[in-house]
């Protein structure tokens, strides 16, 4: 048993525009990475590039942020069902986050990235999925 896709590798690829995941022999896809397949428990996983295409399963617009992140407000987040199966949490690319409503659920998205600059607790920077709504 070994780790096939580390956070560092996932993070580096995301910054380069590639959303990496894992494919299990049972045909399940994993993203973000994990050590074993959540369906069958196998660690025999293959690193694959996912399409980044998916649909918004839920969303929220935030008006209160964690310490040090006030300047990002308001911002919108989404739970996205990727076309390969796994769910991903990220931010919605939107200039009017405070105008989003339930109509956004079910909309198709592509996945880019943003970067959290880090704070004193975060062990450095981290890229995150940034979803673009395509009509």
């Amino acid at each position, binding site marked *: 048993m070994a780790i096939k896709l580390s956070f560092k590798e996932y993070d580096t690829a995301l910054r380069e525009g590639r959303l990496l995941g894992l494919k299990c022999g049972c045909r399940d896809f994993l993203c973000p990475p994990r050590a074993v397949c959540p369906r069958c428990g196998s660690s025999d996983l293959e690193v694959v590039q996912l399409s980044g295409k998916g649909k918004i399963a839920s969303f929220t617009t935030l008006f209160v942020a964690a310490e040090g992140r006030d300047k990002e407000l308001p911002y919108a*987040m989404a739970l996205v069902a990727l076309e390969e199966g796994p769910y991903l949490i990220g931010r919605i690319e939107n200039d009017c986050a405070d105008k989003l409503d339930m109509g956004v659920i079910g909309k198709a998205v592509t996945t880019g990235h943003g970067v*959290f600059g880090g704070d004193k607790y975060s062990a450095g920077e981290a890229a995150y999925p940034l979803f673009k709504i395509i009509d």
Partner: protein
Amino acid sequence: MRRVAVIGAGQTKFSGAQEKCLSELFAESAFDALTDAHLQPRDIQALFVGNALGDFSEGQGMTPAFIADYIGAWNVPANRYDGACASASIAIRDAFLLVASGVYDIVIAGGVERAASLGTPLATRTFAMFSDSRYEFPAGMTFPGVFALLAHRYAARYGLPIEKLKEQMAQVSVQSYKHGMFNPKAHLRKSVTIPDVLKSFTVATPIQLHDCCPFSDGAAALVIVSEDKARMLSQKPVYIAGAGQASSGPMASQGEYLPRLKARELASKQAYAMAGVTPADIDVCELHDCFSIASIIAAEGLGFFEYGKAGDAWLRGEADIGGKVAINPSGGLKSKGHPIGATGAAQVYEIVRQLRGEVEPERQVPDARIGLTDTLGGDGGTMVSLVFKRGW
């Protein structure tokens, strides 16, 4: 396994930021619990304390060791539990298991937190530590954010117009405030209407300020003993008849199953089976209403109402005293408050006193015989269910 009972229960007043330190807060609740149990600190054989954020609120780690010494339970094993908002409940479950298995006869389990002392920005940052640090916090996840995503997911999954769900959520808060008014230990004691909830500040759509529990300071403690000791020491022992615990991964990994939380369903199934009861047998339940939508999701996962229907049950009074099951007569996390490491112990404190018939008459569940606690840590990552029965 031996039978195990709670024979003493104590809770501080829950409040906003205050000046007592962690040891002092816990001591206050532990001394009340010991007095209730007719025991002394030197009788305690082990101390299990839920405390998730002492490092940030007071610069204090390894809290239980210092508490044990401070209260006079010298040199006993003293363990710290971190299961986010379910910390005290995992401490209580471990106390139950170790007394049931014969390792100890008398244990104190509980929790303490100074969540209000953190202030809102740091509290929001530290609570977000119970989401995935690498894959979910960087995008801006916060705790209201988690439950806001669940709320919109709930509306979409069950085909409920969001305005209808918001009215249901508001009624959850209205009911909790109504009971908290009569709980002298509650943090927020005020009368709130559905319009008040709907015009309050939006925290994370669709969640507004009155949908959220407060950050609170406080502690709660229980004396947990073997059946032999319970028979000797107590006229009204409350038996821990069932206990369940389960875990889940980060929120996105729970994807397709959401808004249902699998760990809760597994934990409650274990607890019901161990106790030999069904949801219909529960007279009173303290469930984890960190947000109003959390109550609705919990009441369904615990088996009280059909999926997609719990909000309506609140509007019809079925989740209130006199309804199908009396939910959160303490005022819940919403009104009573949420000092996260202590919350599970405060839920048990309420159930013990409800079964004994000791709470204020305005919020006493008549002839309550079987009670349930439901405690959620993080985004469903840690879930604990405990079933209690009268021992007399």
